């Protein structure tokens, strides 16, 4: 029972983080038709910025906010500086090829990932460093009984919960949210409604950058920070996104939690080194059984 609770709580708090990563991936996929493999590179970079600020005696919270803002800016830069010119290039023989239209952005995002990692390595040396959490990671106690959940886990769950609620309100209740959904579903009709689809697209990159930056801030107190730490998170987030449905925002969150539980239970009941194998098997199963994802719909899957 005890180990079950441990797995359940750690699955919930880790799953919350995976949900953020997968949400970030799905936002950009829906909004711009690109799976951004540089996403967690961007998050790593902004977490380093926060870490640097904290070292320079800024408070945790100001560093936190600055990191989120730089996540948004970095996302927007990637779109404006690279992805938009790449995909809007006319008369390119290569881009006339269907498969190349998806391949080129993938390669570009790998290039960004490489550059970000190298620059972070050069700026902040290669060795791992810790990253603080605002709340101690001690197991909570009620009276004499120790719970299987730490204060930090609760903090993570709370922050992600608030983020998800805000995101939901943004998408379902605001005009900008409607514009974002519409441009993902049908850019032409959206443009004909007078909405600047290009700007909306940049906004999805920015929001995705913020979400993944938040994921970076929440995960590094446990994993430490190095240029490579967040690589795994990208893969897990990708799996979560595929499981939930690459074109469904709600699905991406659901997928995040599912993968969180899978990993947590493998960790507790099997061995940590089996986690990757579990992810691979899980991903392949998902792809074979339901390639459009749990909440994804088939017809809108981009080819």
């Amino acid at each position: 029972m005890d180990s079950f609770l441990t797995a359940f709580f750690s699955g919930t708090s880790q799953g919350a983080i995976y949900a953020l990563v997968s949400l970030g991936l799905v936002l950009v996929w829906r909004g711009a038709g690109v799976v951004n493999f540089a996403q967690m590179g961007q998050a790593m970079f902004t977490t380093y910025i926060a870490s640097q600020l904290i070292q320079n005696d800024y408070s945790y919270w100001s560093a936190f906010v600055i990191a989120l803002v730089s996540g948004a800016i970095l996302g927007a830069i990637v779109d404006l500086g690279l992805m938009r010119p790449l995909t809007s290039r006319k008369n390119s023989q290569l881009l006339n090829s269907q498969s190349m239209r998806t391949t080129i952005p993938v390669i570009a995002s790998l290039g960004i990932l490489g550059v970000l990692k190298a620059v972070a390595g050069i700026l902040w040396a290669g060795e791992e460093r810790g990253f603080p959490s605002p709340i101690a990671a001690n197991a909570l106690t009620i009276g004499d009984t120790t719970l299987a959940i730490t204060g930090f886990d609760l903090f993570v769950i709370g922050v992600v919960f608030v983020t998800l609620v805000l995101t939901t309100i943004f998408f379902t209740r605001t005009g900008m949210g409607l514009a974002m959904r519409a441009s993902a579903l049908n850019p032409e009709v959206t443009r004909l409604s007078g909405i600047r689809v290009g700007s909306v697209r940049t906004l999805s990159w920015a929001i995705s950058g913020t979400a993944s930056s938040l994921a970076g801030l929440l995960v590094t107190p446990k994993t430490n920070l190095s240029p490579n730490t967040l690589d795994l998170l990208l893969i897990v987030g990708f799996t979560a996104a595929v499981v939930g449905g690459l074109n469904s925002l709600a699905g991406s969150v659901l997928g995040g939690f599912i993968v969180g539980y899978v990993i947590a239970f493998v960790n507790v009941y099997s061995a940590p080194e089996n986690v990757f194998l579990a992810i691979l098997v899980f991903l392949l199963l998902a792809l074979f059984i339901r390639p459009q994802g749990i909440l994804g719909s088939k017809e809108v899957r981009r080819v």
Partner: protein
Amino acid sequence: MSKVKTHKVIGARSTRLAIIFFIFILLLSMQFDPYNQYQLANISTLLIAVLSITLLTGASGQISLGQGAIMAVGGYSSALLVTKLGLSMWIAFVLAIFVSALFGLFLGLAAARLSGPYLAGTTLVMALAIPSVAIRFESLFGGDIGFTVDYGYPPNWLTNLIGEISIEEWSLYVALPFAALSLFAVLNLSNTRSGRTWRAVRDNEVAAALAGINIARTKVIAFVCASALAGLAGAIYGFRGLVGPSVYSTDLSLLLLTAAVIGGLRSIGGAIFGTFVIVFLPDVIERITKALALPETISNYLPALLIGFLLLLTVIFNPRGSAGALEHIRHARHSHKH
């Protein structure tokens, strides 16, 4: 009748090019010190893997970020065949081709249902899962470390023929014939009907389907061919000394992709050029950092930085790679003359 004829001509051309490559590398190796001979062996080996990407991504339009994982299949299977069953290295290499082709068949069946980024992500997960697999089945795969294998000694008839040869030369002589053969195979393949079918699927699946092409089958065949090549490369690569998770890392997968991209995804000459770049770039960088006395924090990350920039510059300015640039210049000259 005329079709048969063109095939013959194409066959002659690819034979010629493969032989030229073979002789060129041999002549080059004679000018080189042992270290650079070893690098030439690496080039020959990795070229096979880069060609597999040229075939898969350039010709059939499927992107794989996990060619390293398929190399691992070839590496582990050949190494196991030699160490556990005592087969000869050469037979093991050939069998490794079949094993990885079979693996590619399964992967291709999954991949045919996936497009673009799905495939990219899935192959990346696969590449990252290798250490996990190696540890999970430690008794078979030797866990985190892997196991050591090597090319052995050169056979007597060869040393009798050309005299004593160093380990470095021997590793080149093992890899080079395979590289030339792969080059020959890929050159031929891209000029045959199946090559054209692949390109049709790559450029427009709907149109290809309307033209009566079986999309799924085409994609799976491309995957099988590319996996056979990657597996062969992996087998030769492992026999340099070690078959283990560290050899077939994700970094290797991405490095191979980089080579194919900067050379030009659709060009075989580009694959050769790209392979030279990725193998010699670290040496060049090391020389530069020494000359400039750069601190270690920078020099450690300089190769990654340069490779990232090369990728970005290529997709931004010249998505067809250096091969495309060359063609562009040739065209410009040509039209200039007229």
